[in-house]
């Protein structure tokens, strides 16, 4: 079975919305791959912490314009 992939664009959103979107995707998917685009270090930290607490592995891909692509896998 192919694992599901979901992409979320959380750029420009205030706290706690990026983490809320990531949490919703984690709950919906259960396992698979989630890509979250963020433009603040705070959102990156919050999502990384949240995902790790839920047992997902976290990889951060830094984009040239200062944004981050956070890749969550379980």
């Amino acid at each position: 079975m192919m694992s599901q992939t979901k992409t979320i664009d959380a750029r420009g959103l205030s706290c706690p919305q990026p983490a809320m979107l990531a949490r919703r995707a984690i709950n919906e998917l259960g396992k698979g791959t989630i890509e979250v685009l963020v433009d603040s270090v705070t959102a990156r930290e919050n999502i990384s912490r949240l995902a790790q607490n839920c047992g997902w592995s976290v990889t951060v891909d830094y984009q040239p314009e200062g944004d981050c692509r956070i890749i969550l896998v379980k």
Partner: protein
Amino acid sequence: MSLVSNFLMSRWGPIVTGTVIGILAPILVRLGNPGNMGICVVCFSRDIAGALGLHHNSAVQYIRPEIIGFVLGALTAALVFSEFKPRTGSAPLVRFLLGMFAVFGALVFLGCPWRAYLRLSGGDWNAILGILGLIAGISIGIAFLRMGFSLGRSRPAPRALGFVMPSVMIALLVLLLTAPQFGQDASGNVTGPIFFSETGPGSQQAPLIISLAAGLLIGLLAQRSRFCTVGAIRDVILLRDSHLLYGIAAFIVTAFITNLALGQFHHGFENQPVAHSNALWNFGGMLLAGLAFTLAGGCPGRQLFLCGEGDADAALFVTGMIVGAGFAHNFSVASSTAGPAAFGPLAVAVGLVICTVIGLTMRETRT
């Protein structure tokens, strides 16, 4: 340098920040700031509003250096660690309104969340009602967030925009140092345009250089650790994330110990400094404040730290706080030690209605 930064961004960051604030705030009281008000972002914004002549309560007028330090300290950290990202466009006018209503609520209670925790650590049990109101207000805000509330996305802005609020703070520092007096009242006496209290809480001041240094240090630490007195409660309820809550626990415990050590712990409900004991409106005031802070994304201190990162929307919230503090005194909304003022309860009711309308109607329009 990056080792220290990484440490502050770890789970220890909020704890260290809370501990430092918990030590500094009671010391600032010892050095001259009003009782249980080593730091109060709302009270200090109100003092700044008075110093600028936006209200005429002569007991609460002073340009508080701590507020200036918060923004400039956060600016320094943001520049050093490449987190200075000027941005705007996330419903600035609504944020201005939220700043106003947050201040209305906080001035009915007589303190922002920072001071609610400090009042508790100093033995003022009225703060318990305020903190319960704060938690209730945050919970309502969370309900709106779950229903899809959003103030929309900000977008990158020219670098110059990010320096506007820090520049305003530098201008305030100049006004604090020079205190120009070239206005005249009806009798021809020299007065204003900058007003400083000669009696009352506004006249109670720690030495300027120490207040400024404390503000700068707190601004630096809080920008790195994302310390937030509202986010701490919100994240536990909404995300089951206690990262920031440990910082608040450290803040309260350390401030309690420091108050004990300095002989500043006096427990009870009556005769507490710059406080009243009306339980209903201690709760009600912070209910409104908690809701408004949650809809705006963070506590008043956090809004100042975001200003240092170049967030022009947070700057509108802060401007709303200062203007709102002026209105709060001019319209008899702000409480006194005698209790709620004539229009405090009405202002809280109106604020709750308007914040509810904002919570139910503001949605993101772009996906």
